[in-house]
């Protein structure tokens, strides 16, 4: 059975996930998304993965959330609060969500996952460094290339051709 910290964390995470999608202002929505991502980092801590939790906080809460906030601020003001939605589509979406939750939930609860427990000590995070430098070292190099190409691609995409040097359009 889950303890109180786990329950509180799951309520916080799922509640703020719903708020991130449903709250009217996109700025508050992105702050709610930040709370969701921090809650996931809390789950990582509960699952004895402190290194991944710190990585999650520094990457998601530190950089991605700030990136999203700045993008939201670049968009026109009335679009931030704009919320056009087809009501029929909305009901269909809620139905889909409930079907997935109930269906996958019953499958998982009915499966043998419930009996899995462990008494083994948690994995030492030094083992992750060994993994990175031995078995996964080619993947690590490829990952560095992917990150570099993603950053360069984002810069090229977001560049404006119509503004030359020394000229500003505010």
């Amino acid at each position, binding site marked *: 059975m*889950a303890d109180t910290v786990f329950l509180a964390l799951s309520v916080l995470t799922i509640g703020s996930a719903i708020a991130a999608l449903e709250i009217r202002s996109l700025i508050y929505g992105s702050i709610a998304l930040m709370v969701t991502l921090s809650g996931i980092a809390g789950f990582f801590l509960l699952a004895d993965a402190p290194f991944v939790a710190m990585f999650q906080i520094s*990457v998601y809460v530190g950089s991605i959330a700030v990136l999203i906030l700045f993008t939201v601020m670049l968009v026109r003001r009335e679009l931030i609060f704009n919320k056009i939605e087809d009501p029929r589509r909305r009901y269909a*979406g809620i139905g889909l969500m409930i079907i997935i939750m109930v269906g996958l939930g019953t499958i998982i609860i009915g499966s043998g996952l419930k009996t899995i427990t462990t008494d083994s000590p948690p994995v030492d995070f030094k083992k992750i460094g060994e993994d990175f430098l031995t078995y996964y070292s080619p993947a690590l190099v490829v990952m560095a290339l992917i990150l570099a190409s993603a950053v360069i691609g984002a810069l090229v995409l977001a560049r404006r051709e119509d503004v030359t040097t020394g000229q500003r359009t505010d």
Partner: protein
Amino acid sequence: MLPLVNELIDFVIVSVALLAIGIYGLATKRNAIRMLFAIEMIVNAANLNLIAFARFIPNSQGQTLTLFSIAIAAAEVAVGLALIIVAYRMYKNIDIADFRSLKG
């Protein structure tokens, strides 16, 4: 270190809930940035599953793969936001129903 009181099924249930909320957002929202939020939630549900199963096997490779997954998601968000900014500059809107001419 405290003994682990939570079971695997708890983590998986939370992950399923996050996945369902993400799919709901992806299906209903027309705002491009909100769809990006939904994608983030789905990716995080997958990461949570990886970490939970890695704890209960126990194995360090799940954590390694989660680190890779987080880095890939960061790259994906950067490119996705750049695409949204380009589309906003072209159409002056972030409603995906307006991005008609992207269909070719």
